[in-house]
């Protein structure tokens, strides 16, 4: 249990490639922080620098107020779970979990107690005498977590622990990690490229791109108030629709006119625009697919589209549409809202209409891609 503080941390590899730029972050005691971003964004590198598996080129990493830059991993008092589990293949599950305790010369009866209680929590008691090769992916991952659990380390690091599991198991393990976190009650740093994992697990999410932090915030903050287009598109699935449009102001009322549809900005949003002193201008308008409404008949504020792909997910349908100028838009429609006849109308090439309310708009500067209100 400890706080972690990263100050101006930078990583430059031998081939002069900079993978992390001036990373600043303070992680509070017992906080669950998720680093998320596309592959190659430096999230794993940052985690490995905290673990001591990569040298820190510049800046400092502090654990519990102590600068650990020059400490070996073994002296940092951290536990880590790896993507490929990294179990020792020649040892039984019991020996795998006991490995760190034996290195610390903990008495055998104490080791036995710790290992069996960890195994019980993780439901792997019956596998303790097996070798890792005789376990399934999910069981292996549990052993890896068990190995980290018995350490009672200050910080718990997880590097994409679920990405080698199949989708069903991944969901199950995700729920178990939430439970585990409540039991362990320690500081967690979790790396993933999956925004769902980030949203469901994290107290705070750190969204990274090309070695730079794009936004830090609670799951709701990054979802509702994305600071820029990258965050807006990265969080939420399918990704947020982006449209180029004019933001206009008539008699104190704000309007946008994507593809000829004139839609008024909702009162609260309009207030925020005013408060931030935003001027009428060309903006990139963002609307999430679930906030769009599908219409079968045109109306005054609807956007005409052609249906290209219809993805039936069961509980909902994802409709991939194109507007007249070939902008791609995705609409999420709950299946329950469609009657039998309407479902039949969702065929390729079909002319359909989209509209959305003024409450759900995000405004971005097309040049800087910053959010005009929150950026």
């Amino acid at each position, binding site marked *: 249990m400890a706080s972690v503080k990263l100050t101006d941390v930078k990583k430059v590899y*031998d081939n002069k490639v900079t993978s992390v730029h001036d990373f600043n972050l303070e992680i509070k005691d017992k906080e669950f922080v998720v680093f998320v971003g596309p592959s190659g964004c430096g999230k794993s590198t940052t985690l490995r620098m905290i*673990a*001591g*598996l990569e040298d820190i080129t510049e800046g400092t990493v502090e654990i519990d107020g102590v600068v650990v830059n020059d400490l*070996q*991993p*073994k002296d940092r008092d*951290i*536990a*880590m779970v*790896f*993507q*490929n589990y*990294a*179990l*020792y*293949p*020649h040892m039984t599950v019991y020996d795998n979990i006991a*490995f*760190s305790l034996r*290195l*610390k010369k903990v008495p055998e009866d104490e080791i036995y107690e710790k290992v069996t209680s960890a195994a019980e929590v993780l439901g792997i008691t019956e596998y303790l005498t097996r070798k890792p090769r005789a376990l399934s992916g999910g069981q292996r991952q549990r052993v890896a977590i068990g*190995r980290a659990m018995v*350490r009672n380390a200050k910080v718990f690091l997880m590097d994409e622990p679920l990405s080698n599991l199949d989708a069903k198991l991944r969901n199950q393990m995700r729920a178990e990690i939430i439970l585990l976190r409540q039991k362990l009650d320690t500081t967690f740093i979790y790396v993933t490229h999956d925004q769902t994992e980030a949203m469901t697990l994290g107290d705070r999410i750190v969204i990274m791109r090309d070695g730079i932090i794009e936004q830090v915030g609670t799951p709701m903050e990054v979802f509702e108030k994305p600071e820029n287009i990258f965050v807006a598109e990265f969080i939420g699935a399918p990704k947020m629709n982006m449209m180029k449009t004019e933001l206009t102001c008539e008699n104190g009322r704000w309007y946008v006119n994507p593809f000829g549809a004139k839609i008024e900005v909702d009162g609260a949003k309009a207030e925020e625009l005013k408060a931030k002193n935003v001027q009428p201008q060309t903006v990139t308008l963002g609307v999430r697919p679930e906030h769009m409404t599908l219409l079968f008949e045109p109306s005054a504020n609807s956007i005409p589209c052609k249906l290209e792909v219809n993805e039936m997910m069961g509980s909902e349908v994802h409709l991939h549409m194109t507007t007249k100028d070939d902008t791609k838009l995705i609409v999420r429609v709950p299946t329950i809202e469609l009657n039998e006849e309407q479902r039949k109308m969702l065929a390729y090439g079909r002319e359909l209409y989209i509209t959305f309310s003024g409450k759900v708009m995000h405004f971005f500067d097309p040049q800087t891609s910053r959010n005009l209100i929150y950026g």
Partner: protein
Amino acid sequence: MSENRLLDRSSDAPVKRHMGLKASRTLANTSIYVLLVVISVVWLIPFICIVLQSFRVESTWQESYVIPKQWGLDNYRALFKTDFPRWYTNTFIAALFTAILQTIIVLCMSYTLSRFRFKMRKGLMRFMLILSMFPGMLTMIILYRVLSDLGLTQANALPGLILVYVASSGMGYYVSKGFFDTIPKSLDEAARVDGATRFQVLKKIILPLSKPIVIYTVLTAFMGPWGDFVFARYVSFGTSSGMNVAVGLYNWLNKDQIAKSYTMFCAGGVLVAIPVTVLFMCLQKYYVEGVTGGAVKG
């Protein structure tokens, strides 16, 4: 009707084809085994001849027949009245020390080259690879000078020889480095996070996972000095007490001695072969894995 025909085809034809496949496989296997047996017989003949002649009692020189007319252990008894036990001990000590030291050096070297990243690592590897392509004999004159200045030749040849055998052993990193490379680095990292030092990682994680390659390294390190002739002859330089078995036995084959020591030479040869044969028979499983292990992890 058409259904019947389909049924017919599925019941008859595949069975016939199956039989054909089996027959041709048997034929191929038989011919391969016959060939292998012939090759192994040809290969074994010299060894059988040596073993048989080492038991010959009626004469000590070369004969035109192979199977002894009188069997006995005279040659073995005679061996122990010569310098042979001394040579044998010399060889064994040299091989044992070389095996231990060279294994430690090679494994540490390989682990370092496989896991650490430092400046000139690639350059060093390439340099050593090229260097090891030159025959060791090129350095013989210089080595002899150095060793004789140190007083490690002739009667003191044994420590000198061990020094020569072990000195360049780091260059034999290639096979074991290749094997270590196939062990995921995350195992090292997990162990280091778990609190292990680099040496503990090597001892507790890497080496137990590399049993075949460790045994391969020990065997090759043992075999080099065991069968060495050129360096051993050079460094001992005619002094009997500094010779190893290969050099000592070879001296019995010169014109003056061959008539009275030929069968003794054969007996010596058999005794030299015994420990190596036993070693290989016990460890051959690992040896084969080790030779092929660098490419694909077992």
